[in-house]
Structure formats: structure tokens, C-alpha cells
């Protein structure tokens, strides 16, 4: 059936901020969908609150609404844009839930808008566990025995039926949020209690335990003609019990016979048919009992999922793109396979390589959190690697994580095999390395299997890797045969070096002298049966390479690797923009990255894609392969975050041209002494500071400049290890805590700065071409200095800075850019305290805020930066229309205000005793994503940002206030206003007394730690009787109370303010939410408004 002619416009719902369980894979899928729909001549309307995405580029839709994804907002967009249909299957659970709300509120019917991609009925069948269970049984498959419960009594009653351990899964949550295993009644009450709370339908599913079973996933697609294909099978190396997002996974499945695989395929097809997914994709998870093959269907998602993104990258079959085409009426056989171009999409990809995905965790950011892996997803990113066999793909994937200790090693090991086997019983980050160590020290595969239930085949592969290591180590010399053997199984030069007690560069030199280089194979969907026209490559050590020579001028762009806190989709945005801009400028663009969730690893983003680890070895080899033809103009390193930047020096030493700011200049900004010189020359001030490589030095500096001090390791992103230290005792404690991470030492010292209390923090993103500075945007943080810029909300344009102050910031940035020798992007952080401007730090690279600036002001900084790097001047870029004539300091009065708000993952992290970790903000970044609120004034924009972040401000209700003594004077005014607006005010005794003295009617409430009969504040929050919480941290005695309050708030999902600055900023926003619904405006309209104002 050809394209439907009745659909002229489609509203695509995005997935909102990056959160754990829902990351940039939905930017990838949404971007593909928008592209496809526009190619088909359909008007695309997009709503997504996340500015750090490619899809929200105004170029990808006809009307782009960076607005909160709420039913009210979407209704306003529908009224304004009158779309024929809504496509909700490419924006994760967020979009699907939004679509269901629109249906339930009658909005779809009211405006006669059709849901495409998945019907309401199909969504319900897939997500409602009771309906789904019946459907699976009807399809002739099995399910785990289970009980649905809506109350705690029902939960407890289920124990008789199911016994312990029992699985608890809340309905309608994403990423398995709130799921867990209960081993006893205490566990059960805790997990099910939280689950009932987390489920929008107050419903949990309780199941028999299938812990330790093998876990598989199938990605399927089906069209209106009932044609169904299985795009990919994925096998989890970690057995059932670890969320699939936290498991090491492999594609294709490797331990199934055809009979067993076809059984899963048959079940999958029956389910997708019965659920009624008829214009798109779905993902089905299976558990298989390894002892007898009994198959249980765990769940299905009637939408594009994280696994779909992985499957797309793993096979070259673009699931999201095809899902979008199916949604508008095409059938699979009408859609050509992009890669072969001669065969249709109605086939099943076959792989002649192995794909391994490994998760990346961020437990170091949440020291109090329990690092045990469960059915609740906790990883913040992932890396994928492709090899010609499993051992090669696995080792490549592990080194793609760029994390100390994530690769297999054969160095000193203080624990015994028995201890390691014992440790491996509990799934945690890095268990695979523990297993490798245990096997290496003599644990048997059987012991490891008993401890982990990892399939013996995967265990044997690690045995094999250890045997190869042994051969490498004991070989008389590191010859051709030995190196080949190592490379065959994915050993890096660094691993070979450590096994042979050589340096990595020695190994590389030997290898090159023997003429041993990787070859590059192609991901072609068909195992070589048809020629591939898409250069999507991976390395291996074999006979034949498939890199096609080209005579073009080439630019290599280094991506940012797996997502982590502090380095996420923002950097992918910049890399993708550079690729687009450089391609338009006539260069052949070559992307290297290993993150399957991203747009940059889409095979049609760049001219050539190398899915490779971002290590010096792997990058140098790609460059060598590409240098065999054409002209390598250079490598872009300043857009891929610390990952790419960290490779600059090594590349330069290998004689590779680096585009833009030189590696020496990059060092200049990081090297405190040199940087001070630049500031001195420019007459700029930094807070008093020093550098230390050990505790003694740090103590000396702190004594000299005075506490409090801000400490941070150099060469890190996301404020890793960054803290405010108030006294000597805390400094000692700090060194104790971070010792194990190896963040400080000679060559990478600790920076110790005087901490500026009560200062306003400012961020600036700018472009420098060697002559001229072009400001992208000046952003004012809402929180005071001391909160990491990534976790702080900020506004663009600034709302309290004077024109004079902005000019000082501009000038200072120009001096710094000139002093460093920037060619391309620079981000500088300033603080203004008592009208004195201090430089906090400068980073000559793309910052996290580049996409925010481009969405807020329409200035595409990353594109312009990439052109500056290849020699264009700012003047030329302005003349050529690449940059608006007025830079980011020239914002006409009355322009819209954009507010960026961080989204934090506290709800994902529980402590060992099952309580949420503390949600206090600090200098170390912990947010996973961001949203943007944009409107005519700050209060409305801020209110929108809060709604987009998932904690809408209430129009009425109860507000609880408990603030530290130092904050008490500042809290009076805001609270008075809140009371005038009609909110009921609760406060703890101390705070209440002060408020009463100022004539504010307040009800006193018992502290959690004080004895008493009436409910404490924590009880009230738990019972949902408090709507907004204001709690600023104070001295140690009250700390425990503060923590209890914040943990309860996290559990109850209520708005919380932990700084007075935030609260004061929000007061106007409370007024705005009371005033009525938000108006919506597209980025395209904002751009027209801005142009009109500039005249």
C-alpha cells in the first residue's frame, strides 16, 4: 500500500530530557523520523523540551516547539498547528504516555487527530500487564506466574502464591523504574511501596523469580499488510535479574539453535500481530530456562526503544526511519534497503560480525548509592563495538568505555580466585572483569557459572582471552604471529604492552614495522550477499579491507564516546553539526564514534562512519586507512568533549594535523600556571588559587588563600571530584575519598581555588577566529557559584546583568581567547561578586551549552566553529549567512527569555538500605539531561522549564519551608508572596518562628528527628500532603533531617528548591502558573520575532 494521501501534517512527540532509561537514542530515532516525514512532503511539527538534541534543530521540522511535553501544551500546539496525525512511537515512554493522556482526556477526538505508529488499543495491550499476560498465553507462549496488586495488602497476600524471591514491576514506568527483587517481606514492602507510588495507575505486577535464566530480545517490525520481519536478535550476557540496559549484550544471539530461535520468532510474530502493532516496530524480551528451554515472555514495547537504536546500529537496518515510513502507510516491501539500494526492507538482516554493547555507569557520582545491578536501570550510557568474533568485539567494547579498569588486565591482583568468585555473585559495574580475574587465577568455568549464571559459552570466551594473554606473555618474542593472535581477540596495543612490559608506542612501532594494520569491513545487512553502498565500517585484523579510495579533501571528526554524566548528547549535537557544515563546505566527513545511541553514528550523518573505540590506537589506524587516498585536511577534536580532546596531544605527536585550537593551546587553558599568566597579561582576576599534587600541598594553599576552597582535579569533565571544602578536616576527608579514582598526581594536579560566596555565576560560549570574537550567548546561572554549571539552571539572555557587565564579560573572553590562541569554540565561566569579575575557568572546546545557545538564539555555533577550524573567518561566516550579523550580546529588548533547567537522576539511585540518595546539588555534576523553557518573560520561561523537567509548580496547595540559618533573612520575602498567592505554608519550628515574627501565617510541623505524636514533615511528604518543598542544607545536626526530607521528596516526585536563589527566581513563576495556561511558540516563530525586533 503506498503512502497515505490523507496525512499532510504530523506532530512528532520527542522524549524530553535525557534521563536514565531514556537517553539520546530517542534523539536518533526522532531525528530520523522527522527527516523521513519531510522527505515525503509532510509538514512536520515537533514538540520536545530538550534543547540539546539534533531533532529540535529548526532545520528538522517545519514548526519546532521546545516546550514541556504535557497534555495541556500539546493541546495548545494542536489548536495552533492542526496536525492530521500524531506520531508518538519514536519518543520513548514519554511520548507514548503523552499520547495516552491525550486520548484519555479526549483531546485526540476533540480535534480529530489520528494516532499513527501505534493505536491506543495496541499501546494498552502492550503496556497493561494483565491484558498482555493473557495475550501471551493466547499466543501459545508462557509467562511467569504473577499477581497484579493495587494495594500493599494485595502485595503481601501474593507471597503465598509466588514465594520469595519475587519480582516487583510497577505498570507504565520506563526503564524498569521502581522494579526490583524482594527476598523477604521487608524488601517487598519497600520495593512494592515505591512501585505503587511510581506507577501512574498505582499498580504493580508481582512475579515468580526467573533469576539466572538466559535473556533475549527480538526487534520486530510489522506493516499494515501483516508483513513482519525480525530485524535483530540480542542476547544478554548477564542473565535475567539485571536490566537489559545494564547488561552486556551481544547481537546476534549466540547460544540458540535454529529450532529455539524460530520458536522465539514465531512467538514474537504472534504477539506483535495480536497486540496490533501494524505500522511500526516493537521489542520483545524473552527469558529462557537454560536447563530445559522453557520460554517466558517478559515484556514488549510497542514502540521504538533503546534496543531498537542498538539493533539499528548493529545491523544497518534503520528501524526508526522505516517505522516512520510504515506509520504513513508504506509497506515493508515498498521501502528500499538504503545500504544495498537494490533489495527491499522486507527482509531480515544477517550479520557476519559480532556486536557487543556494554553499559557505562556513574556510581562514582553517587557514593551513597547501592551499586548492585537489578531490574531497575542505572547505567547512564553505553558503548558498542563490532568485531569479527565475540572476543574481539567484547574487548573493543570494554576499551570504548574509556574508564579505568573497564578492560581485562593481567597485572597485580590482590584477591584470591575464591574471593573473586564470591564477589561475582552480585552483579555490579565491572563484574565481567572480576570474572576474568577469577578465571585467570584458576577459578573453573563451572564455579563462575554457578556464581553468575552467565552462559558457559561466554565464560569460555573469557577463558580463551586469558589463554591468549598467557601465550602473548610467554612467547619468546612479540612477532607477527603473536600480535596477530592478540589482535584476532581484540587486544589493544596497550594490553599487549602491559603483557610484554613494553610501552604502548613500542608495541605500535613493532606492529607497524611488521606491516600489521587492521582492515575495515562493512556493515551491510546481508553478510556480503549484495554490494553495500554505504561506507559504515569497523576494524578487524583479517585479509581484505573494504575502504574505497576517494580523492576528496577529508576531515575526521572525533565523537564523544559513551554518554556519561557531564558528557552527553550535547557533544554529539556539536559533532553532527560539524559534519553537516563541513559536508556542505565540500569536505568528505569521516566520523569516528562508539556510542550507538547517537545521531553521529547514523550511517547517513557523515560521508563515512567508523564505529570504533575512541582510543589513540583505534583513531590513528582509521586515520592511516583514510590517508591512503585523498587529502587528510585534519581532525576535529574540540567538539567531542573530553574524550576527543584527550586524544589531541597523541594525534599531534603522531604528526596528524589538528583542526582549530592547537593541543598546546588546549593545555594552556588547563595548566594553571600558564593560564594565570594569560589572565595577568589581560588584567583579569581569578579567585586566589594554587595547584597541589598531594594533601600537604593542598593544605598549604588552603591555609594561604583561606577557607572555604573549591577543589577540582584537572582534565576532567562534569566536575568530577569537584567539591567545596570548608575546613582542614574536610580536606583530609576529601583526599581519602577520591584516592581510589587516581584523579590527582604529577601532571594532573588538583586545582585549589578560593570559593566565592554569594557570587553570580556566568557562562559564555563564543567563537574566535584569531582576529575576532563572536559571542554565542552569555548565560546567567540561577544558582549561585558552587553548584556545577551543568546542574544549575541558567537564563539566556541574563536577567540581572547590566549591559556594562555583559560587555566586561565579552572583553574578558576575547582577551582569554586571544591569549590561549583559540581557533574555534571557547567556553568561559565567570563569577561576579561585589561587582568584581572573576574568571573561574576557560575551556577551549565545545561546551554543554552550545546547543542551548543555538536553540535560544538561533546561532548555530558548532557549525560555524567547524568552518573556522578549516580556515574561514567570522567575517566570512557572517557574510555567508552562517552566523547572524548580531552576536549573542546583542539581544533586542523584549526578546524571549530561555531558561535551561537540569534534570537529575536521584530517583534511580537508592542506598544499600533502599532509600534514595541525597538530592543536594554541589560542584560535582550529577544531572543526566536538561530542558529548556522559553517565553516572553523570565517567570513564565522558568515555570515552563520546571514543568518540562517533570515537576510542574502547583497552582495551589501546601509549601513546606525549612532553611539554614544563613538563609533565613532571604526567605522571608518570597514566602510572604507565596502566602499572598494563597499557598498554605508549613515550616519547622525554627523557620516558623522567624516567619511568624514577620507576620506570615505559618503552621509549625514536627521535625522527623524530634519526638512527638503528630505526623512529622517526612510523614506528610510521604502521604502526598505537601506540594512544594524548600529545604536548604545546614549544619551537621540538622543534616539528617534535611536528608530525610529530600529523600522523601524524591520518592514523592514533588518540586523541591534547595537554594534560596532558585526559590526567589521561581516566585514570579508561581504567579504565572496561577494566571493560566502557557502559550506556545515555535523556534521558527521566535526567530522571526527576533529578526523583526533587530529590524
Amino acid at each position: 500500500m503506498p503512502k497515505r494521501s490523507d496525512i499532510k501534517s504530523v506532530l512528532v512527540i520527542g522524549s524530553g530530557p535525557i534521563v536514565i532509561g531514556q537517553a539520546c537514542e530517542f534523539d536518533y530515532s526522532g531525528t530520523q523520523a522527522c527527516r523521513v516525514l519531510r522527505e515525503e512532503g509532510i509538514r512536520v511539527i515537533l514538540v520536545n523540551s530538550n534543547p540539546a538534541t539534533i531533532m529540535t534543530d529548526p532545520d528538522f521540522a517545519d514548526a519546532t516547539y521546545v516546550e514541556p511535553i504535557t497534555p495541556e501544551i500539546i493541546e495548545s500546539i494542536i489548536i495552533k498547528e492542526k496536525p492530521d496525525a500524531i506520531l508518538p512511537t519514536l519518543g520513548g515512554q514519554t511520548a507514548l504516555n503523552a499520547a495516552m493522556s491525550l486520548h484519555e482526556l479526549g483531546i485526540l477526538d476533540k480535534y480529530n487527530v489520528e494516532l499513527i505508529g501505534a493505536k491506543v488499543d495496541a499501546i494498552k495491550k502492550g503496556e497493561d500487564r494483565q491484558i498482555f499476560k493473557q495475550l501471551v498465553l493466547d499466543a501459545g507462549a508462557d509467562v511467569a506466574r504473577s499477581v497484579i496488586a493495587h494495594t500493599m495488602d494485595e502485595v503481601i497476600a501474593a507471597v503465598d502464591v509466588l514465594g520469595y524471591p519475587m519480582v516487583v514491576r510497577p505498570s507504565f514506568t520506563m526503564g524498569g523504574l521502581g522494579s526490583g527483587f524482594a527476598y523477604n517481606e521487608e524488601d517487598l514492602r519497600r520495593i512494592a511501596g515505591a512501585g505503587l507510588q511510581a506507577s501512574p495507575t498505582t499498580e504493580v505486577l508481582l512475579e515468580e523469580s526467573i533469576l539466572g535464566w538466559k535473556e533475549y530480545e527480538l526487534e520486530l517490525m510489522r506493516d499494515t499488510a501483516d508483513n513482519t520481519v525480525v530485524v535483530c536478535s540480542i542476547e544478554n550476557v548477564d542473565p535475567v535479574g539485571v536490566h537489559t540496559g545494564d547488561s552486556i549484550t551481544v547481537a546476534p544471539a549466540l547460544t540458540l539453535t535454529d529450532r529455539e530461535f524460530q520458536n522465539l520468532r514465531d512467538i514474537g510474530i504472534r504477539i506483535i500481530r495480536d497486540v496490533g502493532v501494524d505500522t511500526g516496530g516493537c521489542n520483545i524480551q524473552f527469558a529462557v530456562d537454560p536447563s530445559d528451554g522453557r520460554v517466558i515472555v517478559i515484556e514488549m514495547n510497542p514502540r521504538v526503544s533503546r534496543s531498537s537504536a542498538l539493533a539499528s546500529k548493529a545491523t544497518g537496518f534503520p528501524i526508526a526511519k522505516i517505522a516512520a515510513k510504515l506509520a504513513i502507510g508504506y509497506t515493508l516491501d515498498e521501502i528500499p534497503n538504503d545500504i544495498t539500494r537494490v533489495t527491499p526492507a522486507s527482509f531480515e538482516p544477517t550479520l557476519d560480525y559480532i556486536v557487543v554493547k556494554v553499559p557505562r555507569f556513574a556510581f562514582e557520582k553517587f557514593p551513597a548509592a547501592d551499586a548492585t545491578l537489578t531490574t531497575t536501570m542505572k547505567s547512564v550510557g553505553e558503548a558498542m563495538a563490532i568485531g569479527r568474533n565475540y572476543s574481539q568485539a567484547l574487548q573493543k567494547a570494554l576499551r570504548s568505555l574509556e574508564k579505568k579498569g573497564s578492560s581485562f588486565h593481567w597485572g597485580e591482583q590482590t584477591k584470591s580466585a575464591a574471593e573473586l568468585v564470591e564477589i561475582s555473585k552480585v552483579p555490579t559495574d565491572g563484574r565481567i572483569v572480576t570474572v576474568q580475574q577469577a578465571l585467570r587465577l584458576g577459578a573453573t568455568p563451572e564455579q563462575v557459572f554457578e556464581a553468575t549464571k552467565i552462559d558457559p559459552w561466554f565464560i569460555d570466551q573469557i577463558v580463551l582471552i586469558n589463554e591468549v594473554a598467557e601465550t602473548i606473555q610467554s612467547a619468546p618474542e612479540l612477532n607477527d604471529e603473536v600480535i596477530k593472535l592478540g589482535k584476532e581477540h581484540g587486544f589493544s596495543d596497550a594490553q599487549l604492552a602491559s603483557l610484554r612490559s613494553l610501552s604502548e608506542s613500542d608495541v605500535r612501532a613493532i606492529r607497524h614495522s611488521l606491516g600489521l594494520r587492521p582492515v575495515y569491513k562493512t556493515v551491510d545487512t546481508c553478510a556480503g550477499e549484495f554490494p553495500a553502498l554505504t561506507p559504515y565500517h569497523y576494524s578487524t585484523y583479517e585479509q581484505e579491507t573494504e575502504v574505497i579510495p576517494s580523492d576528496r579533501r577529508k576531515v575526521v571528526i572525533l565523537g564523544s564516546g559513551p554518554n556519561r554524566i557531564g558528557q552527553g548528547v550535547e557533544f554529539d549535537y556539536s559533532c553532527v553539526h560539524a559534519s553537516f557544515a563541513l559536508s556542505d563546505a565540500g569536505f568528505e566527513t569521516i566520523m569516528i564514534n562508539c556510542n550507538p545511541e547517537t545521531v553521529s553514528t547514523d550511517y547517513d550523518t557523515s560521508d563515512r562512519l567508523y564505529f570504533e573505540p575512541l582510543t589513540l590506537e583505534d583513531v590513528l589506524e582509521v586515520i592511516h586507512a583514510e590517508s591512503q587516498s585523498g587529502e587528510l585536511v585534519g581532525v576535529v577534536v574540540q567538539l567531542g568533549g573530553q574524550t576527543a580532546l584527550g586524544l589531541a596531544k597523541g594525534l599531534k605527536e603522531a604528526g596528524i594535523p589538528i583542526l582549530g585550537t592547537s593541543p598546546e593551546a588546549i593545555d594552556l587553558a588547563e595548566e594553571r600556571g600558564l593560564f594565570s599568566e594569560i589572565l595577568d597579561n589581560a588584567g583579569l582576576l581569578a579567585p586566589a588559587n594554587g595547584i597541589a599534587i598531594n594533601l600537604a600541598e593542598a593544605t598549604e594553599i588552603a591555609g594561604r588563600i583561606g577557607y572555604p576552597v573549591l577543589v577540582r582535579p584537572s582534565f576532567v569533565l562534569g566536575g568530577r571530584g569537584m567539591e567545596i571544602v570548608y575546613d582542614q578536616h574536610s580536606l583530609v576527608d576529601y583526599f581519602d575519598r577520591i584516592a581510589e579514582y587516581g584523579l590527582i598526581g604529577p601532571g594532573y594536579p588538583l586545582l585549589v581555588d578560593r570559593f566565592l560566596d554569594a557570587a553570580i555565576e556566568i557562562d559564555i560560549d563564543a567563537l574566535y577566529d584569531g582576529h575576532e570574537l563572536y559571542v554565542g550567548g552569555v548565560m546567567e546561572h540561577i544558582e549561585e557559584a558552587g553548584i556545577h554549571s551543568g546542574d544549575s539552571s541558567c537564563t539566556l539572555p541574563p536577567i540581572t546583568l547590566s549591559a556594562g557587565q555583559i560587555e566586561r564579560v565579552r572583553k574578558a573572553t576575547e582577551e582569554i581567547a586571544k591569549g590561549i590562541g583559540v581557533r574555534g569554540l571557547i567556553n568561559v565561566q565567570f563569577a561576579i561578586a561585589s561587582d568584581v569579575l572573576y574568571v573561574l575557568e576557560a575551556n577551549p572546546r565545545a561546551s554543554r551549552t552550545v546547543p542551548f545557545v543555538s536553540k535560544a538564539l538561533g546561532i548555530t555555533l558548532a557549525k560555524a566553529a567547524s568552518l573556522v577550524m578549516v580556515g574561514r573567518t567570522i567575517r566570512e561566516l557572517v557574510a555567508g549567512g552562517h552566523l547572524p550579523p548580531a552576536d549573542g550580546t546583542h539581544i533586542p529588548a523584549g526578546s524571549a527569555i530561555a531558561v535551561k533547567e537540569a534534570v537529575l537522576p536521584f530517583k534511580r539511585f537508592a542506598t544499600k538500605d533502599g532509600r534514595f540518595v541525597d538530592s543536594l546539588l554541589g560542584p560535582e555534576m550529577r544531572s543526566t539531561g536538561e530542558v529548556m523553557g522559553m517565553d516572553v518573560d523570565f517567570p513564565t520561561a522558568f515555570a515552563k522549564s520546571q514543568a518540562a523537567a517533570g515537576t510542574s509548580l502547583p497552582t495551589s496547595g501546601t509549601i513546606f519551608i525549612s532553611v539554614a540559618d544563613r538563609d533565613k533573612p532571604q526567605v522571608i520575602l518570597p514566602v510572604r508572596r507565596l502566602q499572598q498567592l494563597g499557598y498554605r505554608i508549613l515550616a519547622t519550628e525554627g523557620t516558623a518562628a522567624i516567619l511568624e515574627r514577620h507576620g506570615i501565617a505559618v503552621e509549625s510541623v514536627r521535625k522527623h528527628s524530634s519526638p512527638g505524636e503528630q505526623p512529622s514533615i517526612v510523614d506528610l511528604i510521604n502521604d502526598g500532603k505537601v506540594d512544594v518543598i524548600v529545604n536548604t542544607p545546614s549544619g551537621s545536626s540538622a543534616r539528617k533531617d534535611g536528608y530525610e526530607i529530600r529523600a522523601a521528596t524524591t520518592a514523592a516526585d514533588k518540586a523541591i528548591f534547595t537554594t534560596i536563589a532558585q526559590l526567589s527566581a521561581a516566585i514570579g513563576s508561581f504567579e504565572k502558573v496561577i494566571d493560566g495556561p502557557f502559550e506556545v511558540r515555535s523556534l521558527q516563530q521566535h526567530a522571526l520575532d527576533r529578526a523583526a525586533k533587530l529590524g
Partner: protein
Amino acid sequence: MSKALLVLEDGKVFTGYSYGSEGQTLGEVVFCTGMTGYQETLTDPSYAGQIVVQTAPHIGNTGVNSRDEESSKVWVAGYVVRDASRIVSNFRSEDSLDNELVKYGVVGIRGLDTRALTRHLRDRGVMRGGVFSGEKANAPVEELVAEVQSAKKMQGLSLSDVVSTAAKYVVAAEGAEFGKVAILDLGIKASTIENMTARGLEVHVYPATSNAATLLETNPDAVFYSNGPGDPETAATQVETLQEILKTKTPFFGICFGNQLLGRALGFETYKLAFGHRGINQPVLDRRTGKVEVTAHNHGFAVKVEGGPEVDSPAGFGRVKVSHVSLNDDVVEGLECVDIPAYSVQYHPEAAAGPHDSNYLFDRLIELISNNRKAANA
């Protein structure tokens, strides 16, 4: 780890390690793209005379078991894999693949660039080759190439006698008997028989040399020609037999080689494909329903039908429809006679290995028999 060589008739040599039995073997080198089902592939008689290259890198992970055998032995002439599994991991496994290959004397090779080999065969077409291990691996390459070039070509080769049953046998229907099918065994797979008996058909399996009278001796409800190896042009006797059967208006169904023989019986030509279809992911369009099925293929020859979706049988059997086509390359994948009760498909509805999408073709046999009975009674 002893060295082994794969030598192609065009002089290209791939070096790897010996796998399975040591020694030497000659055959037509073909690649198979299925990611599962190596055991079914090895025991599929259609692969007789061929050296099979698996494009999936890991082979042998799940061992072998008696349930998944498609015939009583391993038929491939040689076996080429990238990574042979060191261990076996599957609850149904009874032995390792390595042992199985040794048991049947299959000379194999592992550890070579199978993708380069596949691309070579794709670009130049399948060709003869040899696997040499043990002493022979050290012989001069020219000598080995010469040996390969002296091997028989698949084109013009008749292999039916090699793979067919020596004597007739009967397999009873499961449950209530619906009817009886006479099968000409040209290399039949166990799954084909299972699919028939599961539908209430008693099957009588005859040697490939059986004539029409023998096939019709029990007055069967239908005659079936199985899959099998070799060049259909060499099967003139079986084609004549089929023409006799078609004249009796006995319902007929053919799979793979059986499809090619129906094509020839109807008067069409068959031809050799450049590198054939061997995999379990092939999209085929069923023209009757407009639906696409993902199917298992294993064929190097195909039927040539020109002049539209419906043409007259040059041999005078009335109108013939091309019922199924490959969506990858438009190769004829199925024939359906309009005026006589006969149909066939080029691919494998019995799957094993492969998806079960086209299982319905066995239901069509039941339908055909029913309709034929009704017509006879009318």
C-alpha cells in the same frame, strides 16, 4: 593447530586451520548466510557435493543433537567457518560439531577471512574449490589449483542417486489420516516429511529412479518431488515421469529441485544463478496474497519464465502462473498451474533452518487434495 588451505579454481587461496577431518575435499564452494541452523544445513542433502562457507562467524556453539538432523548424515563436501566453538552450550546438545564432522569425515577449514571469500564468490560467481589439510596443505599451490580445476562442475552434475533412499519406505500420518502422498526422494529433508505427516498425510517415499507407475501404485492423493542437489537439466527421466503424472491430473507439489523439475516438465528452461540463494532471510512475495514472507533458500539453479505473470505451458499443460518471486532479484520462486492441480516453490516452506512464514504451503497441499476430491466426486 595444523594449517589448511582453501583453494579456488581461479587460483585464489585462503589460509586457515584444519577443522573436522584432515585430508582433502573438492566441491562447489557456496556461501550460506543463515545465522542459526548449521546442523540442519550440514544434514541437508541439497548441499551434497558442495563446500559450504558459513558467513556467520561463530559456528558450533550449540553442538549437535539428533532432533535437529534433517537426514541420516552430513552431506556437505567440505565446511568453511571462521570461528569454530571450543565448547558446546545448549541443554539439547548431545555432541560437539567437531566430533560430528570427524565422524562423517568432513574436511573443513577454520580461521580464514570468510567475508573476503564470500565477497569473492559474490563478485565472480560460485566456483569449484578444494580444502586441503594435513600433508596436502604443504603441496605446491599450482598443483592444488590444477586438482581443483579437474573436479566435476556442478553444472551438468546429477546427484539424485547419491542422496536418494535405496528402498521405498512409509511414514504413517500423525493422528487421523487425511490422505496419502507419494514422494520422489531427490534428497528429502526430515522436516518436509514431518510437515506432511503432521497434517494427516501418510507418506510413501520412493527412490529417485522410480517411474510414474511405481509412484502411482498406491493410488496416492498427491505426488511430491523433494528438494535435492545437482543440475535439473540432468534429471530428464524424473521430468518425463512427472509429465506422465501431471497428465493423470494427480495433485502435485514440489519443493526446490522439485520446483525446477516441475518447471522443466511444463516446458520451461532452468539456469544456473551466479552465486545462488543460500540463507534464511530471503524476502519472497506471494503474488496470490500480496504478502511478503521471509524464507529459507538453498538453490543455485532457477526456472526461467518469461512473458508475464501468467503464461502458457510450452509442454501443453495449460496456463501457468509465477506464484512467488524473490524481492531481492526477481528470480522465479514459485509456480502454480491453473488448469492442472500442480504447484511448487523454489524455496523451503519446511524451513529447518529458517523462519516458518511459508509453512502454509503445506496447508495448500491439503487444500489441493480436498478440491481435487470434490471435483472428482462432483
